[in-house]
């Protein structure tokens, strides 16, 4: 089991009048699985990911990563994370940034191997601007650089929070192809959050729907295809509460 969460709760104030409660009763992701958490904005997707990574502290509950407590650095050492909002040093070139962050991993590769991996990723992600400074990158280029940073380490579990923000269709395909390749090669597990349903329509094998801090449903790819036809219909079945407009 790559991830298991039981009775995880977290309460915090969004504003003076608004308190948010996250309550994940049970969630588990199998080794080699490609799972997605879907839900509207503010439903608790990113909060839950941050709790898994110990960036936020849960009030109660238990999370295990690779059969160890998630607070154990040994288990988190095999996890790569791409947050939705990130900030890289602006004066670094992409290559310098990748070297600097690769250095922070416990399983850091030596300089030669990092360069080899950077070139491999650049080739896979169609990146020809490795020597461009971070501050001079467009939104899509920045997102691609952030994804390169995430896939630089040969980890077992990748947690990606809205990974396709700002990417065009060609770039998305290149990245998905790379993910499928390494999933086949190393049996990695992926947990992704997104609100762009088409991104995951054909890729995910397990989906969790989250609303107001609670997992309201989970289903496998086959169950969704049998019952709803597509991920979009599955999602709308739970979240589209508006009556259709009749002209």
């Amino acid at each position, binding site marked *: 089991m790559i991830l298991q969460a039981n009775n995880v709760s977290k309460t915090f104030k969004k504003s003076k009048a608004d308190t948010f409660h996250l309550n994940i009763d049970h969630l588990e992701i199998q080794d080699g699985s490609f799972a997605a958490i879907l839900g509207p904005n503010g439903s608790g997707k990113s909060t839950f990911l941050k709790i898994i990574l110990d960036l*936020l502290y849960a009030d109660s509950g238990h999370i295990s990563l690779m059969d160890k407590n998630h607070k154990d650095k040994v288990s988190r050492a095999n996890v790569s994370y791409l947050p939705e909002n990130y900030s890289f040093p602006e004066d670094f070139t992409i290559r310098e940034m990748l070297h600097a962050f690769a250095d922070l991993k416990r399983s850091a590769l030596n300089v030669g191997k990092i360069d080899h991996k950077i070139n491999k990723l650049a080739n896979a992600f169609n990146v020809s601007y490795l020597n461009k400074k971070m501050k001079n990158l467009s939104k899509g280029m920045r997102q691609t650089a952030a994804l390169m940073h995430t896939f630089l380490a040969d980890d077992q579990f990748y947690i990606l929070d809205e990974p396709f923000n700002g990417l065009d269709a060609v770039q998305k395909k290149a990245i998905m192809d790379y993910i499928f390749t390494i999933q086949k090669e190393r049996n990695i597990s992926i947990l992704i959050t997104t609100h762009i349903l088409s991104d995951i329509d054909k890729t995910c094998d397990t989906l969790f729907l989250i609303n107001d801090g609670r997992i309201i449903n989970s289903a496998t790819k086959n169950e969704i295809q049998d019952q709803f036809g597509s991920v979009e219909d599955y999602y709308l079945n739970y979240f589209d509460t508006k009556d259709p407009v009749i002209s």
Partner: protein
Amino acid sequence: MIRFTIRTLLKNKTLWAWPGIFILFVVAVTIWGGVSADPSGYSYAINLGGLPLPTGIVINQLVSITILIAIIGIPTHFSENIKPERASLLLSKPISRSELFVSDFAGVYTFCFAYTVISVLLLTLLTAVHGVLFPFHHAVVMIVFLPLILISYYITIVLFLILTNSYLGGVILGYFLAGFSSLFLNVDPFLQMFGLTDTWFETLLNILAYLIPSAEGFQQIMGHIFSSGFSSLDGSLLAFAFASCVPFSLLGFYLLRKKQF
């Protein structure tokens, strides 16, 4: 993480002004002035454009400018590192909050030490060009105490950065509070000046003296050794200066461990 800190500091253009000031000074004195050995053989004399410049004042001014540049430039990376957008990248490597805190100080100290060595080498080069030996105790005292002065300011700034999440607020508060520490080394004249003769006020100031990192303590020790050599080293003042750095360091460490991103 130490290497990451040093890499980001080396990329900080504000901090390039530190060696820049020393290079400018060396070039200016070499072109428009001169250096001559002090008759006592214990120091040297600098003149610029025909005007003699007292060595103590010159070094004091260079150190003051360096402190100002470092205080403005150094905290920028820490301020960025504790924003959720950067912290989530760093802590998920995974790096513990304790490691982030300790290695940041180690990185900043290493950086300050390296830039101080470069500054001292530039001054040594300046005197050597004019056939004068740069006094050994000047070199040692700068290399030892300039990084300590900067770290004592940095401890205060880091605490306020953790508390306020604001670079500008942290730097201004840290700068004034650490600068305020000079008051504690002259409590009696201050109390007399304001007619505060109550002992409780003196006690309060004495407590504060041990709570706020004493940049002034390190600066005074540096000044004494500069003018009178190693024999003037005040051990109790040195112990006080180190002790005063402990409370804010521990508080900053504790608050960062509790911080959520």
